[in-house]
């Protein structure tokens, strides 16, 4: 296959026939470029939707309470519903199979001071389960433990940005921070894929928080994740059941939408999944369409090239070129041009995506538009194969034309 002389011959033909080379190269490069751009932008849209629903565990459910809007069982509307510790116990026992992680939560805004640096942060009293719920990743130290809950320890796990605000470049580990006048020891620093807001929280044991800010058994809200084995529809059914039993327990009208509110990520997930499926189909359709256009383009050009070269091929045959060497020459030329052009189209596409990526993210709804390498490489290879086949058929015909006929071709 690798015949140095043959390559020299091919390079000469390519460089001496610039228009032809540029024409076929352009078709291929343009097809791959379009493919890359469309695919990349499509992927960017996808990323946007993924990002919108990232940050918290995709199987999260949050349960909040409010005031009743309907009178029920002789109770007036406007009554405030308050979750308490017995709700924690009740939910944990009743839905043991369906719940994966579970944490009651108390949240307050507190003044945090460390050696003259101060700022206000949301402080949350939680169970250890809250870490996977929030998908917080420990960078240093540990999260709240069961032992901390039991001891009502005055310890905190702080977000990465809290450390940055109060400690600059120094480590916050084992330091004491003053929160609303009480001193807490930092036992861990976490980061959170949810972004800046989620990295400005301070977590403390639920029991500590309850005893300091509530002085009773009240709970602000619950966060939980459902068992990931549940299908989306089952998960929605579960949260509906959860809503129903909680309303019964607190004597709330089943139709009352405000008193107990359950927000299930699964519902959003379901819509997003459907949307993503549609988006994927559209992207695939566009991709295949672009490829087909490219294949047709290169086929036309190959037919034209062989036609244009009929006489030259006749001369070569009269001088002793075998049909095999004629076919080989045309194919190697076509493969070489498609490969080089395809690769440049790919590079231009990838760099364009990188260059316009940021501005797209600001102005439109497209985030990190990019293409997987194997997808574009695959597309390029498909085009090369198509170019080869498209070149082979006319090349074979040209090679089998009697040289005298080819010589008379004008």
């Amino acid at each position: 296959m690798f015949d140095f002389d043959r390559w020299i011959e091919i390079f000469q033909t390519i460089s001496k026939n610039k228009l032809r080379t540029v024409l076929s190269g352009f078709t291929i490069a343009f097809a791959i470029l379009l493919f890359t751009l469309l695919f990349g932008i499509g992927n960017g849209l996808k990323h946007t939707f993924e990002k919108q629903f990232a940050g918290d565990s995709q199987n999260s459910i949050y349960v909040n309470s409010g005031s009743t809007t309907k009178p029920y069982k002789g109770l007036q509307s406007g009554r405030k519903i308050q979750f308490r510790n017995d709700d924690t116990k009740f939910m944990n026992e009743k839905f043991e199979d369906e719940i994966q992680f579970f944490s009651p939560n108390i949240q307050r805004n507190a003044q945090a001071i460390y050696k003259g640096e101060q700022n206000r942060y949301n402080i949350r009293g939680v169970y250890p389960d809250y870490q996977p719920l929030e998908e917080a990743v420990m960078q240093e130290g540990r999260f709240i433990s069961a032992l901390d809950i039991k001891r009502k320890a005055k310890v905190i796990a702080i977000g990465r940005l809290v450390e940055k605000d109060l400690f600059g470049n120094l480590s916050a580990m084992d330091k004491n921070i003053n929160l609303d006048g009480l001193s807490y020891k930092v036992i861990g620093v976490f980061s959170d894929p949810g972004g800046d807001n989620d990295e400005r929280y301070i977590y403390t044991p639920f029991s500590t928080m309850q005893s300091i800010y509530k002085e009773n058994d009240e709970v602000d809200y619950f966060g939980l994740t459902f068992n990931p084995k549940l299908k989306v529809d089952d998960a929605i059914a579960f949260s509906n059941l959860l809503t129903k039993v909680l309303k019964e327990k607190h004597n709330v009208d089943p139709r009352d939408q405000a008193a107990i509110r359950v927000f299930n990520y699964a519902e959003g997930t379901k819509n997003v999944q459907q949307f993503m499926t549609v988006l994927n189909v559209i992207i695939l359709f566009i991709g295949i369409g672009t490829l087909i256009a490219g294949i047709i383009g290169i086929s036309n050009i190959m037919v034209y090239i062989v036609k244009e070269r009929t006489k030259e091929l006749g001369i070569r045959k009269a001088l002793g070129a075998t049909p095999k060497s004629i076919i080989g020459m045309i194919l190697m030329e076509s493969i070489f041009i498609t490969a080089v052009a395809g690769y440049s189209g790919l590079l231009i596409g990838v760099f364009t995506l990188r260059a316009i990526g940021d501005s797209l993210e600001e102005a439109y709804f497209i985030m990190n538009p990019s293409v997987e390498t194997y997808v574009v490489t695959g597309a390029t290879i498909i085009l090369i194969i198509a170019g080869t086949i498209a070149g082979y058929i006319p090349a074979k015909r040209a090679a089998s034309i009697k040289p005298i006929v080819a010589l008379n071709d004008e």
Partner: protein
Amino acid sequence: MIEIKNLHKSYPIGKDKLHVLKGLNLHIKEGEFVSIMGSSGSGKSTLLNIVGLLDVHDEGEFYLNKQLIEKLDEKKAAILRNKFLGFIFQSFNLITYKTALENVALPLYYKGIGRKERQKIALEYLDKVGLKDRANHIPSELSGGEKQRVAVARALVTEPKVILADEPTGALDSVTSKSVMDLLKKINREGMTVFVITHEEDIAAETDRIVRLKDGIIMSDEKVKKKVEA
């Protein structure tokens, strides 16, 4: 060198057949300088194409260099052409994007000779036709006579047994025609068999033997009486 016995060739035209060569017998010995004369339609080009292995005959026998030519596939024909035959065409048939040197070297490429060796040999032959200084020009930069001399060099470069020239002066004026014919004569004197097709009497008169074709039949086959060269 070339021996033809009862050669027939016809071309299909629609349902009918056009009988072009009607039983030719011709024997050309090594070192001869032969011209085939005839008006258009006499079958002279068809004869040249068959002799040149560019086309196949229907009936009869054809020996090239004592080798019976039959059932040739394209590959065998290509190898035989490369080995035994050198072509000169009316319209030169140079490859337009290659320089004179590259055109001359091309048959050697198909013979499988290395690049440096090819260029060396090609340059020798360009020198032989007096175009060494035009080696790096492409055909469009050459005059008609120069183009045909490049084609002659290309025909000679593989040291073939026979040079086949199809109306070699057809596209040239009388002065350049003469110079091309002088070149062919010189080649012939060095021992090459040269086979020319023409419809011009004065060109045919330059050769040693004239075969006249009419309607696919040989009318006459005679030696040329040489004028005493002054």
